[in-house]
């Protein structure tokens, strides 16, 4: 089975983020990692390959993410590289990924449920639509059975579905615990040749992104009000404050 995994590079969750003085931009500490949910997708791809044979190709824009996928055990990586992809609309990204995946040939495409940056969850299902294949989101289990997949997903409860191949699945937490790359893998990833393709190579038409109208930081809360006393007293005072001051109960 030929499996393509879409890997997104995102700022580390611990990276410092600051809105610039005039509110027009962001300063993000340059610590970049493979997206949390995509690590799960890479692990799932490796597990499916082990069960059904085949090849795993990682496709994405960031080198850090692609090398991580290789270090985990992906057989190859393809990099999308184009100035037009900087700050691109998700649909442009999806069209480019779909074209690159189609060029590689695939039976199954895996993506993450969402990026930890914008938590959008747009690109996976968009790629499925562009490729014209069925899409199942929030997957926590998958078996190959007689050439189709039996997939379990988490969405307001659980669902088990039979999905014909080719298909695209997005990975939810709980599917697999991603492996930590070994030294051998890391060395292989460092040495790997990662071919780059451009939007022109792929014949992709860009969608104009929505214009940014500035950034703001998270809402700052007033200093916490500590409520003293034994449990009974503190509880009574808290209830009074929630009712009379905060007016939320």
């Amino acid at each position, binding site marked *: 089975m030929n499996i393509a995994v879409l890997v997104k590079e995102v700022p580390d969750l611990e990276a410092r983020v600051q*809105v610039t003085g005039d509110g027009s931009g962001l300063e993000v500490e340059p610590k970049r990692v493979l997206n949390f949910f995509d690590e799960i997708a890479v692990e799932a791809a490796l597990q499916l390959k082990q069960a059904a044979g085949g090849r795993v190709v990682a496709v994405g824009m960031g080198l850090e993410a692609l090398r991580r996928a290789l270090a985990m055990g992906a057989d190859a990586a393809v990099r999308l590289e184009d100035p037009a992809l900087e700050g691109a609309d998700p649909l442009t990204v999806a069209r480019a990924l779909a074209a690159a995946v189609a060029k590689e040939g695939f039976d199954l495409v895996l993506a993450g449920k969402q990026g930890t940056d914008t938590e959008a969850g747009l690109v996976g299902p968009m790629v499925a*639509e562009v490729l014209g294949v069925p899409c199942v989101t929030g997957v926590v289990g998958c078996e190959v059975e007689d050439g189709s997949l039996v997939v379990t997903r988490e969405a307001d409860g659980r669902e088990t579905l039979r999905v014909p191949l080719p298909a695209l699945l997005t990975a939810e937490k709980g599917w697999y615990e991603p492996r930590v790359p070994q030294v051998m893998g890391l060395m292989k990833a460092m040495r790997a040749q990662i071919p780059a393709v451009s939007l022109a190579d792929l014949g992709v038409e860009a969608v104009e992104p*929505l214009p940014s109208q500035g950034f703001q930081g998270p809402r700052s809360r007033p200093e916490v009000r500590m409520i003293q006393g034994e449990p009974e007293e503190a509880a009574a005072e808290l209830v009074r404050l929630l009712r009379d001051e905060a007016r939320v109960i």
Partner: protein
Amino acid sequence: MQIWVVCEAEGEGLRRAVRELAAQARRVGGENVEVTAVAVGDEAGPAEALQGTVHRLLKVEGPAGYAADPWVDALARVLGDQAPDLVLWPEGPRTRDVLPRVAARLGWNAVTNALALEAGDGGLRLLRPVCGGKAYQWLGLTGRRVLAAFRPNSFDPETQADLTTRVETVSVEPAAQRAEVLERTGQESERVPLTEAQVVVSGGRGLKGPENLRLLEELADALGGAVGVSRAVVDAGWADHAIQVGKSGKTVSPALYVAVGISGAVHHTMGMDTSKVVVAINSDPNAPIFRYADYGVVGDALQVLPALTRAIREART
């Protein structure tokens, strides 16, 4: 300007998030807006609840119960034909399946996870998180066709029922569903869904053991809210991932969030930081969660929780 709201039922009724969007569409649209509620298949019945609050109710006949492929097809056709400027969707698993694919079909712009919509100098704009909620970005919507999904509890659902709603019907013959559902197990809980709840009571490792989750449930029931947990609780096997709050779980934005025995790791707070009022209960006065809280109680969760439940019940009678 044409603003559409995509209806989604919950039980017998309409999701509150849909009423929020319909109310906000009128608020930001001003004089020249026409608000259309679009209801696919079986959602048409519950969508009647919007009578008087929207200009038009458009029923799309063809698909019956929900399935992703026919819904994508039906909505893409109707939207493509009628070309509204802005389509508002309630965040949720169904929207996450359908919205991106409709956008890809139509070549329109798409945004999810948004939390504010307002009329600015340059027309309508929306706010969405970037960098995992460490910052937020305004995106302009004017002059484009945009599909945008908003978190529940982002807007006030109250609005005047002073319009005469035109009811229209279109019929489509949608594509067939390709993935076949073999089995479905719903949420066992009788409580309000976590992401929709006005009150969320969440517990962490400070609860000491799975047997004490009962104390959370009792408080949540007294408040009419939902129960959430930290990842540590899920990893320990005390609760299901479906109710995990945080970066790798659900994002909630209730009017009241109560965090009990939760340290306040950034991965957790990223999932609850937009809650309106936050209460933290923790035995450690230096726990980081107090930095994200409006009210704090230092104490043993196993004592404070029952006391609080009793106090709430008393206040409510």
